[in-house]
Each structure stands twice: as C-alpha cells, then as structure tokens.
C-alpha cells in the first residue's frame, strides 16, 4: 500500500468508517518537517499490513484540522473504529511510529 491522499469529503468513508486502523498524516506543503516525515510513512505503509495510511492537507481541508484541534504539524493521528487512539506531533523517527502501530 501507499499513503493515500484524502479530503474533508472522503474523511468519513476513508477513516471513520474504516474497519481497519487508519494512520492519518495532517500536513501542509509549506511544512518542511512534514516533507521529511513522508518517506518514513511511505516505508511503513509498505511494511505494515492491516493498517491504512492516509494524508490530509490542512490548508485545503482546514475543517478537519479544526475538528481534531491541530495546532502543530506534522500531526499523525491513529484512528481505530472511528476514534482517535493515539497521536504523534512533530518529526519523529520511524521507531516511534512502529511502536504506535504495535
């Protein structure tokens, strides 16, 4: 799998109604640390099965950033059964996400 780009419109179907956990990367194009983080998430999306990887641009979809109270990016939220299960803020090494995904 790869990291799939989602939007406010597809958030419910892709994330909240997903029957497997979804790791969502909230990012923006002007955010350097977000760009540094993406290859790590791409790698993990290939290595991990049973988890969906998604990314949402917070400038194009500010409603979702508001909804989840995001005030710093990159912000990666793990959703399980439509609910936030864990959250990671800032650029972090791959192991941190490995741990988050269990």
């Amino acid at each position, binding site marked *: 799998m790869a990291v799939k780009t989602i939007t406010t419109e597809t958030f419910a179907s892709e994330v909240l109604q997903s029957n497997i956990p979804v790791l969502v990367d909230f990012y923006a194009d002007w955010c350097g640390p977000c760009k*540094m983080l993406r290859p790590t998430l791409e790698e993990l999306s290939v290595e991990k099965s049973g988890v969906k990887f998604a990314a949402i641009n917070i400038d194009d979809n500010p409603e979702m950033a508001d909804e989840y109270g995001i005030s710093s990016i990159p912000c990666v939220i793990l959703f399980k059964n439509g609910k936030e299960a864990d959250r990671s803020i*800032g650029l972090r*090494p791959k192991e941190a996400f490995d741990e988050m995904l269990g």
Partner: protein
Amino acid sequence: MTDIIIIGAGPAGMTAAIYARRASKSVLVLEAMSYGGQIINTPDIENYPVAAHISGFEFAQNVYNQAKALGAEFKFEKAVEIRDSGDTKTVVTPKNEYEAKAVIIATGSENRKLGVADEDKLVGRGVSYCATCDGAFFRKKAVAVVGGGNTALEDALYLADIAEKVYLIHRRDRFRGEDATVEKLKQRENVEFVYNSVVTKLNADKKLESVEVTDKQGNVRTLEVSGLFVAVGRIPENQNFASVIELDGAGYAVAAENCRTKTPGVFVAGDNRVKDVRQLVTATADGAVAATEAVKYINS
C-alpha cells in the same frame, strides 16, 4: 573501522561529510532523527550566500544529496556515548557500536523548555517552539510569546499579523533583543507587554485555554490564550559527550575556530560549539574546518 564518524546530519555535519569525502576518507554519519537539522523548520532562508531564497527543506535535501553522492554513509541512530581509546574512538548507539579514527560532534541544539507542568503534553495542543511553523493555526486567536531575546521579539511581530492579540511575557522589564523590533512592537495595537512575569501554570482541557503568569510582586494574572510560543533560547546537545569534551556553563562545547576539543581526534562543529553567531553559514564553515582538521589528524 571508519575513518571519520560524524554525529548529527545537520548543516554542520553534512558539510563535514562533504569535505571528508573529498579528502577520500570513509565517512559514517549518525543521525538521531532525520537529516537536515533545525533548518528544515523554516520555509524561507534568505541569508545564505548564492541562494537568494531557498526553503529549509530544499537546503537540507541538496546538502544531503551532495554528501550522499560523494559516498558518505548515513545511519539513523542516536549517538549516546563516545569512548576514547587513543587511536580508536568508539561511538555507541542504542543498537550498535561503531569504531572510527576521528569523530566530529555536530549535534546542534534543541529548544529550551519553560519547565512548567504539562508543557510536554500540550505541545501541538497550543504550546509551540516555532512561530513561523505553527503561527498559522492561531489566526484571529489570542496567543502569548515568552522570552526576551530577538527570537521572542520577532515571533511576537510575526504573530501580531496573524493573531487577534499577542501577549509578550518577559521576566524582566527590558529586552535583550533589538530596540528597533521593540519599537515596532510598541506600534502594534494588538500587542501587550507583560513585564517582570513568568509563566507559572498552563490551563488546558484538551487544548491550551489560558496561562497563568506571576509577576515579581507575586501577583497572579490569567491570560486567555489558545497558543503559547516559547522562545527562551536553545540548549546544545552535548550532554552525552561530556566525558570527551569540555562544556561551558551553558553546555556549549569549548573549542576554538579550529574545532579541536580536549580529546585529540574528537572535534566539534556547528551550533553546539561556543561561538557568537549561530547561523547556517557559521555551521557549514565549522563543518569544513572540523573535517579538514580531522583529516589532518588522521594523516599525521
């Protein structure tokens, strides 16, 4: 055994890698996080010669590609210790031990925390150390900046254009930063100076809702803000290496322009070294000098 191990893939470390590879030495760069260092946080660099404008991300990418193309090896592991056995230095990471003839410590610095309860928990939920990174999330909201240096002043000015209200909290009644910036801030109607005060409490439910400040007389005031920008300086990342390098009172590695430390074969480069100007151009300059010195040390 590697010729030169470089700890930290920021601008200083990656420049050192370029110089060491061009001198035909084998190079291993150990990086705790991702290459680039602090500079990836800014979208705009406008004071590095040759590039009139470049983003921090592009800057990092370019230097990384250059070092990589020259044959530097990168491993993403944090160095936790250096052991000196004369001609051989051992760099320890949580998973491995690596041996080298010379080591360059280019670990830069990290943001200094305020040290109030729940500060870590609220990072990304209102607490931030980078106004240019996170300011956009506080459009038309009230925010506070803490600090008295140029970074705090510039952050306050930047935020004054975005936020509805900016409190500038400083523990003294005079700023260390430039007077010109202070004057600019005084012209702004939405900036309020909160002098002689320190942040004593963060009030939050899920997100920051207000901060409590206490002044020198002990008066407590609550500021309703959804953002708190902490700009109280940076701390050098040298603690792990205190057995082989000398640190000054603030934790910076003591070394002259030649980047040599008290341990022969161990060099320091970049923002973690004692110096007056901490910028890209001085960090890359250190990288060049430290690598050249390391090569000289190995060849002698």
